[in-house]
C-alpha cells in the first residue's frame, strides 16, 4: 500500500487559517489502512480545526467527507454537488489523491493533510517499511523476492558492498542489508548459484529517470 504519515496540526492550520470554509476529504484506501487519512482521521482533524477556529472567534464551516478513493474520477464525482459549499479542500489522501482532486476541481485550492512516504508493508501495528519503488521493471524473480532497488541504500544490483556488516547496512544498524537478505533467501531456496550470475546493467528508463510515467493498456481502453 501507499504509506502516508499525518502532518503536524500546526502545519495544516497554517494552510487553512484564512479560510471561511474547508472540506476535510479522506480516502478509504491505503491511507485508511495506515491510519493517516481515513474516516476516523478526517473526524479528528475536522474536530480539531472546528475547535481551533471557534477559539479564534471565527465561524468557519468545516465539512467532513471520505471517498472510496481519491485516485478515480467516479468517486471524486461524488462531491461535485457539495464542493461549492467550500472554499478549499484539505485532502488526507496520498499525493496522488491530492493532485487528482485538484485536477478534477480546478477552482478549489487543495491542501495536503498528510505526508506521503512510500509503497510499503505493515511490519507490525504502527510500523511500516518500504518495499517497492515502482521502478517499472521488476527483477524480484532473480533476487529471491527481495528488492535491491527499494531495500539497498545504493540500489546495487551485484551486492553487497563493503558497508555490509553482520547483515546490517552501513547507513544504520536498524537497516537490514538487502544483499544479505537476498543471499540468505537464495540459500534457503537452494538457488545460491543464481547469486553467482552477474546482473546486467538495468534499464532505468522505466524508472523516474524517464520522466513522469504512464501505463496504457490498449486491451482495457474504451
Amino acid at each position, binding site marked *: 500500500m501507499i504509506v502516508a504519515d499525518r502532518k503536524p*496540526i500546526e502545519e495544516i492550520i497554517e494552510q487553512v487559517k484564512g479560510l471561511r470554509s474547508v472540506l476535510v476529504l479522506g480516502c478509504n484506501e491505503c491511507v485508511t489502512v495506515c491510519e493517516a487519512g481515513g474516516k476516523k482521521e478526517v473526524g*479528528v482533524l475536522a*474536530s480539531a480545526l*472546528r475547535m*481551533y477556529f*471557534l*477559539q479564534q*472567534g471565527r*465561524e468557519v464551516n468545516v465539512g467532513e467527507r471520505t471517498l472510496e478513493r481519491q485516485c478515480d474520477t467516479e468517486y471524486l464525482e461524488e462531491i461535485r454537488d457539495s464542493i461549492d459549499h467550500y472554499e478549499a479542500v484539505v485532502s488526507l489522501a496520498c499525493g496522488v489523491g491530492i493532485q487528482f482532486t485538484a485536477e478534477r476541481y480546478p477552482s478549489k485550492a487543495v491542501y495536503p493533510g498528510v505526508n506521503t512516504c512510500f509503497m510499503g508493508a505493515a511490519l507490525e501495528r504502527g510500523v511500516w517499511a518500504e518495499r517497492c519503488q515502482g521502478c517499472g521493471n521488476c527483477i524480484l524473480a532473480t533476487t529471491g523476492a527481495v528488492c535491491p532497488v527499494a531495500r539497498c541504500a545504493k540500489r546495487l544490483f551485484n551486492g553487497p558492498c563493503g558497508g555490509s556488516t553482520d547483515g546490517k547496512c552501513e547507513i544504520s544498524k536498524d537497516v537490514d542489508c538487502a544483499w544479505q537478505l537476498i543471499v540468505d533467501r537464495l540459500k534457503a531456496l537452494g538457488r545460491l548459484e543464481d547469486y553467482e550470475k552477474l546482473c546486467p546493467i538495468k534499464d532505468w528508463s522505466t524508472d523516474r529517470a524517464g520522466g513522469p510515467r504512464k501505463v496504457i493498456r490498449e486491451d482495457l481502453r474504451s
Partner: protein
Amino acid sequence: MRLNYPSSVRIIRVPCTGKVDVLHILRCFERGADGVYVVGCREGDCHYQSGNFRAKKRVEQAQHLLDRIGIGGQRVRMCNLSSSDAPLFVRFAEEMHAVVMAAGPNPIRAARASQKKASAPSGAGLHP
C-alpha cells in the same frame, strides 16, 4: 461504601477503555466538556490484554492535539484502577475536578456563546 465524588463528573460506560478513541475525546471537548478522564483497569490487568495501553496512547494523542489548538492537554488524563477500588475512583474524580477548576471552563463554550450572541438579532432576550 457510599463514598461521595464530585457531582460534576458524568460517567460514560464503555466495554473497555480500548474502545475509547481520540475522536470520542475530541467530540466531548467540541460539545463543551471541561475535562475528560479515561478510567481503565490497572496496567497489565486488561481483560482484553492491551485495551488500557491503547487508551493510554490515545489519551496522549488527544493531549498533544488539545495542546496544539489551545484547549490545553492537561484537561485529558488516563487513570488506572482495580474495578473494586472505590476510594481510588473517588480520588481520581477529585483530582480531575481540581484540574478542571484550575484550568477554568472549556474555552469552546465561551466561544460558542459569544458567537451565538453575535448572530442573535438585536433586542433578542429583552422580553420575558
